[in-house]
């Protein structure tokens, strides 16, 4: 097993210039900065319209030091395939291709192209940064918005449907590597990218991204809220290596601890969940407990 990266062993080289256009306290800014460190300089990026398009800056100034192709919303994974084919015919097989797309660009409009690329076994890493809504267009619901969240187009009742489980969909493509990460645990993200980057075929990494304007909390609490999502057992950090599911990092430790923080604390820290009733929260708590009961059982 590779040694875990610490804040001291993290590479010093930066691939994102300081002073990006990200919102104050943006979780993506953390994940992107650390993620690019893990990918390194021999990487070409593909980015569809999303918060990252804004973070990257306005022409002719860009905040990213790696080559990057901005593409249409639905075409991220197909564009990555085109880059891979070109690198192959140019004999530049060592150059990596990494796609960074938001949750709308992944779970909704980009899912077909992603599924196609994964089925073809395109050798690239796809990172979905999941801030649980169309935040760049003003906080509308997406396929990964959780049940109960108020958004600009679920304004009174909150979203009535479950969050789409994109990592599970990707795992169903029999990928060599699928992982769930969080911006609140950037070093875990770093290690997972490094672990999978040379694995064959398509690699999928899902990153939970706290979003101050979209979720409704003071920007300084982003990491705290991201951690609460994990410590309440609501959002789990895991990896699926060649089909083998395993909790990782902070979530793995929770199994040993055998104790979760009540999910109420996570919900009550964000204004987007303000319409969730105690009964609804109790319901979600039961689902979390059932899920974790199976984790505990597996661990026995």
């Amino acid at each position: 097993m590779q040694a875990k990266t610490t804040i001291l062993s993290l590479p010093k080289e930066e691939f994102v210039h300081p002073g990006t256009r990200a919102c104050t306290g943006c979780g993506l800014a953390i994940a992107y900065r650390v993620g690019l460190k893990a990918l390194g300089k021999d990487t070409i990026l593909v980015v569809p319209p999303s918060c990252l398009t804004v973070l990257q800056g306005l022409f002719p100034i860009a905040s990213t030091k790696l080559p990057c192709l901005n593409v249409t919303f639905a075409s991220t994974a197909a564009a990555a395939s085109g880059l891979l084919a070109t690198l192959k015919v140019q004999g530049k097989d060592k150059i990596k291709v990494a796609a960074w797309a938001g949750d709308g660009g992944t779970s909704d409009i980009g899912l077909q192209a992603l599924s196609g690329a994964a089925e073809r076994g395109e050798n690239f890493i796809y990172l979905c940064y999941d801030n649980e809504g169309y935040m760049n267009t003003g906080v509308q619901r997406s396929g990964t918005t959780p049940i109960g969240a108020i958004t600009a187009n679920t304004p009174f009742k909150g979203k009535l449907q479950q969050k789409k489980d994109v990592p599970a969909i990707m795992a169903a493509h029999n990928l060599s590597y699928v992982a769930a990460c969080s911006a609140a645990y950037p070093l875990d993200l770093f290690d997972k990218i490094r672990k999978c980057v040379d694995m064959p075929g398509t690699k999928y990494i899902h990153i939970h991204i706290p979003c101050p304007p979209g979720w409704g909390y003071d920007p300084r609490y982003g990491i705290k809220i991201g951690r609460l999502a994990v410590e309440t057992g609501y959002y789990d950090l895991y990896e699926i290596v060649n089909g083998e599911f395993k909790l990782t990092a902070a979530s793995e430790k929770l199994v040993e601890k055998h104790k979760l923080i009540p999910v109420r604390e996570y919900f009550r820290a964000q204004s987007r969940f303000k319409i969730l009733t105690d009964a609804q929260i109790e319901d979600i708590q039961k689902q979390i407990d059932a899920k974790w009961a199976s984790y505990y059982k597996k661990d026995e």
Partner: protein
Amino acid sequence: MHIIENGNVAAALGVFLCRANVIAAYPITPQTPLTEKLSEYVESGEMKAEYIPVESEHSALAVCIAASSAGARSFTATSANGLLYMHEQIQWAAGARLPIVMCVVNRAVGAPWNVWNDQQDSISQRDTGWIQIYCSDHQQIIDSVIKAYWLAEKVSIPIMVCYDGYILSHTYMPFDVPDQEQVDAFLPPFKPDYALNTEEPANLNTVTLPDVRMDVRGELAHGYMEIRYLLHEEMRTTLTVALEAEKRFADIFGRSGDPYIEPYLCDDAQYVAVGLGSLTYQLRVSVDALRKEGIKVGVMGVRFYRPFPDAAIANALKGKKGVIVFEKALSYGYEGTLASDLKSALYEHLAGTDTLPVVQNFILGIGGRDIRTEDLTRTLRAAIKDRISQEPVWIGLKL
């Protein structure tokens, strides 16, 4: 080497000879035999290229866009709804100034479903910033593909090579297949000004403001409007570059023609029929018949539809009594788009003179409705004898 093959194979051979190295395609009738042929070339190892069997046409063009951005010579082909499904990517490829070549095997668009030939698909993409070339036979298909790569890479604008589904795609005709050495002499390897690479990283197609903006060195960079103006301006310049392409082609392959228009018996004609694609060759038969009746009529195929060779067209039609435009597509709620464009060119160049011809417009062959030569002859004769109507007239309607 002369061979007898179908139009799709003519296109595939052109792509093969141009050494395209990234090909992506999604199946749609009547394009499929073309891309199947390319997959054969690649899988057998005859062609050194990557062939990506994508899950949609939107993705097919995404592959070409990314490949072209990274320096590959890319190709795709489609028809009808496949082309419409690409629409966003079509605009993107033009805005990003990528020299992609795409064959459009013309077919009617749904609804209702129809797999037969008309030209509504490519005509509906007229205003996307792509060069459009229309072919009338198999020799033109293979030659146009080869010329298209040279031209597209010269001006950094993508090109649609359009040819009629079935009428050309699935019929067999003799044509000359150039030698590889000739094509290599005509078409140098693709070397874009910038291709995505890790040594000189660039961020392509970032958000661009309405106005110009200073870069980090204090130099002004284009705003969106400047970028779009240059696309238009350089499209217009392409008309001149196309002449250069034609001359180079003639020098190496020993055949050439007018890149914009293809006139037949037009010099002394008082009336000229105008159209796009294989229809204009069928119209030659009607012209021959009417000439025997003593009617001075010719036919002119428009090969370059965008950029529109307005001056060449106006010059060719100057002083004619009448121009009769036959079209397998239209702008719903008005008339055939070629008729509109042609009237605009005539007005621009001949208004106020006594050389301005009367223009009539006929719509025909929509959704593969049989176009019978005797109907064409009868219509042409009637239109010449007596102007039929201000409105476009649909030939062969059974209402």
